[in-house]
């Protein structure tokens, strides 16, 4: 009554060799030796993948062998991720990031960037006027460990020394700059991640960053050292403050998509916002690396206010032109 050997067994016997071949190729690909596959092998993966897929559909219709079906499902899923995975190499990806993705993403974020910058400025002005009206305000804005003796009770000479004294010497600079970089990068990541909570914590963080800046500036301004402090701050600060403003802006973008999804579904809106904001954040980490180098090396080695200002202007022009003037083909 039944044919002697099952049809599903014959089905399997005929195709098994191809599956094993695909499995062996995937094993090598996943072990990260993709570059060692020969051209013929690379070309054969999609072909074998499609035949495995049609085996899977057929097996679901003709076979009741659970092991066979789950094997084919796992094989096809692995092959699917291989075939439809990212195809560009790491280097291509990096090039595209600098040539197109990063400046485009930053430019698209201009509204949020303005808002974020306004929060930072608001913080700076608030602290500036409050500290000038009463010195005790300074201690409310500035954590003691950050001020390092740069407070209203310090003499003008002490304050001046901080700006121009290389107390770290050339020796401590690499450590100092790497410390600054990691510290600032963590703050920027936080400003971004906090955006998820409907923008408010990001706004606060940017505002607070402005407060410390404004408080410090007020102290120096009162001793007639405002211009000198500007050079000391902006040589790296243009890059660093811009980066933190962008991190806040990226946080706003996500928080806004969550709070006011508009016509999109909330989840889809988040994904779209997350993709763009993520690109900006990769760039922010890079900018903070640059800022850390400027702060650790350039500021400690260059003690002339005019040179400091010209470097600051140069970085401002550079970033501005790169983000807002340079128009890559979309």
């Amino acid at each position, binding site marked *: 009554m039944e044919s002697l050997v099952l049809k599903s067994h014959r089905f399997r*016997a005929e195709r098994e060799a191809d599956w094993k071949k695909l499995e062996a190729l995937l094993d090598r690909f996943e072990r990260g030796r993709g570059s060692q596959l020969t051209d013929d092998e690379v070309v054969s993966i999609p072909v074998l993948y499609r035949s495995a897929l049609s085996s899977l559909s057929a097996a679901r219709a003709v076979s009741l*062998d659970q092991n066979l079906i789950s*094997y084919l499902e796992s094989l096809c899923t692995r092959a699917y991720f291989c075939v*439809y995975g990212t195809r560009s190499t790491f280097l291509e990806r990096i090039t595209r990031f600098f040539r197109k993705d990063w400046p485009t993403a930053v430019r698209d974020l201009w509204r949020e960037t303005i808002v974020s910058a306004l929060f930072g400025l608001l913080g700076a002005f608030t602290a500036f006027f409050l500290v000038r009206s009463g010195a005790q305000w300074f201690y409310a804005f500035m954590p003691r460990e950050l001020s390092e003796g740069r407070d209203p009770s310090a003499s003008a000479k002490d304050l001046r020394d901080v700006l121009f004294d290389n107390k770290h010497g050339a020796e401590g600079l690499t450590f100092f700059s790497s410390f600054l970089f990691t510290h600032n990068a963590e703050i920027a990541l936080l400003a971004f991640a906090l955006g998820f909570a409907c923008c408010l914590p990001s706004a606060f963080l940017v505002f607070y960053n402005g407060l410390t800046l404004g408080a410090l500036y007020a102290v120096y301004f009162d001793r007639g050292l405002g211009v000198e402090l500007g050079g000391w701050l902006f040589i790296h600060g243009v890059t660093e403050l811009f980066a933190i403003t962008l991190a806040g802006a990226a946080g706003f973008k996500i928080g806004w998509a969550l709070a006011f999804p508009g016509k999109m579904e909330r989840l889809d809106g988040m*994904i779209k916002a997350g*993709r763009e904001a993520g690109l900006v954040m990769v760039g922010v980490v890079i900018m903070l690396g640059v800022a850390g180098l400027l702060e650790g090396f350039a500021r400690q080695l260059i003690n002339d206010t005019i040179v400091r200002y010209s470097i600051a202007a140069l970085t401002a022009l550079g970033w501005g032109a790169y983000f807002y003037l340079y128009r890559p083909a979309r």
Partner: protein
Amino acid sequence: MSLSDPMLEKRVRELVTPEGVDLRVVLADASERFGAFALDIVFIVVALIVLSIAAFLMAMATGGTGVEFIATIWILGFFALRVFYFTFFEMQPRAATPGKRIMGLRVAKRDGSALTADAIFVRNAMRELEIFLPLTFLFVGGEAVDGWIALFALLWCGVFAFFPLFNRDRLRIGDIVAGTWVVHVPKRVLAGDLAAQPPSLAFTREALDAYGIRELSVLEDVLRQKDPQTMEAVARRIRHKIGSQDGLRDVEFLQAYYTALRGRLEQRMLFGKRKRDKHDKS
């Protein structure tokens, strides 16, 4: 782990390839996600300890002159581990950190498109909010801020940390923002075909209609596990149900019945009838 398991069935999601075949991916559950994360943390801590010991030995070897350089390497290494450990490994072809690999998991886009470097960066940048921020409040909370404020901050952060437990797809905040999820991609071994030989025993039509597909897959599991006690018990029940008086050994009997039953059910399936289980009368 058979696909007829109802707990597993709840975690199966549709993933239709451009060729139009549904791959039926299985999502990772919360315990597997947590296990993978715990493993990764262990690896990071071990790497940090090794890094510190190496830095210390180097400092000793240079007699203190290279301390600054070594400290720089250490602090950059710490930062790289914290921020790029997950990102680096998830950008590899397997799209999984070592912890996820051990648990048989990988990251994938929810819409089935290619996983991009941006998505991986975003889903891991969000860890800052989910893991490191609550940890900060947990450890420094006591001294720096008022205890109550720290407690409320911790609770607020906890909402993010435990987010995966409150949705069906076990998404973290990072997954939501990046449009990813974490799926099971276990490597399965193709075991031998149990129906390679024709059945050594003939069964009546009634005997083969006694069971359906669910029982067949249970029988397959029994035959593959080869536990003598289970096989004896199962063989006794089947013999009783179909009234067989054969003199075969349990294994041979089950093997023969499996092959015959599968042949019968597959034949009916070709004619468009899937007999789900023994209660499915048709």
